[in-house]
């Protein structure tokens, strides 16, 4: 029995990491399309999405089989439930990458909009969140997952800033309102990708530590480090953070 469940869990973990690899690449390509106008990369994202959809169903069916036939408990149960949720998150990230690729096709045909540094920064952080979320899953590293969770403030902040700048820009450049709305649509999708990476991080923490941290990360961190602040913020408060 234990050998069977170990084989099943090993298989489903390999499958989810395979999907993770595909989705990470899709995000990368969609951002190349957005930032560099690489329409070939964007087209590959759009055409390849059905692969992720098919794999998502396979993983879900496999997980349901494990639940029904192996009745996993403890760390096995946590792994299966985490994989099921991460599976949905990855599929959604794949869809959002498609949306970005589609917006990029429109944006590639028009003059470049003047928000590039912040857009590049937001793309880099969001991409890193997806990558490190998957790394945390591979390594079963709850600390890395928590760092991913902490990173999510940055895409949120950048999105709000670009939104403010874009509002002002559209008031003075009414002929570019349509283009700007396409860019904001793409960035909204990117911000959602970062949110899904955060979900993955939360599921990894549950898988490793058995604690549901969703909506109560500060409480979780207080138990871990005594003050509840992300370590980099605590360092800043003590003046030890190297600017």
């Amino acid at each position, binding site marked *: 029995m234990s050998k069977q*469940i170990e084989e099943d869990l090993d298989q489903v973990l390999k499958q989810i990491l395979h999907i993770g690899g595909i989705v990470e690449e899709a995000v990368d390509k969609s951002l190349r399309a957005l930032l560099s106008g690489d329409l070939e990369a964007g087209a590959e994202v759009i055409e390849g999405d059905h692969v992720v959809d098919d794999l998502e169903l396979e993983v879900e069916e496999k997980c349901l089989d494990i639940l029904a036939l192996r009745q996993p*408990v*403890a*760390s096995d149960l946590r792994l299966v439930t985490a994989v099921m949720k991460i599976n949905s998150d990855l599929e959604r990230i794949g869809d959002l990458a498609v949306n970005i690729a589609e917006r990029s096709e429109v944006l590639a045909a028009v003059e470049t909009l003047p928000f590039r540094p912040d857009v590049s920064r937001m793309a880099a952080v969001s991409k890193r969140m997806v990558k490190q979320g998957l790394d945390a899953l591979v390594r079963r590293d709850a600390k890395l997952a928590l760092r991913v969770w902490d990173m999510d403030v940055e895409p949120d902040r950048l999105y709000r800033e670009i939104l403010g700048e874009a509002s002002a820009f559209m008031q003075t450049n009414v002929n570019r309102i349509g283009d700007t709305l396409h860019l904001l649509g793409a960035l909204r999708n990117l911000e959602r990708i970062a949110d899904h990476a955060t979900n993955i991080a939360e599921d990894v923490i549950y898988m490793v530590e*058995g*604690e549901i941290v969703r909506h109560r990360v500060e409480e979780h961190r207080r138990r871990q480090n005594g003050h509840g602040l992300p370590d980099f913020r605590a360092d800043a408060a003590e003046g030890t953070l190297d600017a």
Partner: protein
Amino acid sequence: MQMTDDSTLGDRTRGVRADVRVSTGLPPAAKTPEQPVPSARAERIRIDKLNLWYGDNQALFDIDMVVHERSVTALIGPSGCGKSTLLRTINRMNDLVDGVRISGEVRLDDEDIYHRDVEVEILRRRVGMVFQKSNPFPKSIFENVAYGPRIQGLNDRTALEEIVESSLERAALWDEVKDRLDQSALGLSGGQQQRLCIARSLATNPEVLLMDEPASALDPLSTGKIEDLIHDLKSRYTIVIVTHNMQQAARVSDRTGFFLNGVLVEEGPTDRIFTNPQHKDTEDYVTGRFG
């Protein structure tokens, strides 16, 4: 029966005195003096530093455990781990085994059940037991259930009928046997016989029910009925159940204790034991990776 010299084992150790009978039973159930959390259930059984030896072999090591009223506590662990031994200490069934000695305390409503003044018959009336193999007497269904009250001196037919009916109802057997109470209990199915034994335990109006693998010899349907019954009985009784079936422990219990080699490795809320056990041995056992 081996008698232990208290002086050689210290003041926490005493011999098992199944042969001691005194006229006083346990005092009336003491109420827990305070309940810090309003919704928390009162403590019913407290096991404190309990050690048990079969001759020279120590079977239980420093067991500390609390069982709360109107809850189900499951004891799990591999064969020979001490879970049934612990169960039997709660109504002193081990008194019947030669060479057994214990140290430490088992307290029921804050009274030490191994105190020399405790009358074991009264203790066992308060703490009933259901065994792995159903063991109905070769008597009628009615007489099986009425047996306990009868030996307690109750002979009033109407009172006995009321007890038999209510006990069979609580054991979820009444509807199946009400028309054949005078027939032999041995004609019932295995699952019905086990529920009859539960009804027989209930007839003496116990406060605690000990169940030693109560469904291990039953088919899935009968097992389901026993598990439903345990769930229903929980509203009135404190239940401690030993089971080899971990899914059963997960289904029926509020708290679970995992035993290994006579040690209570981990005890806690059942949902935590089966989702996030704190001890590696527990994790290995519940996930089937033990040994």
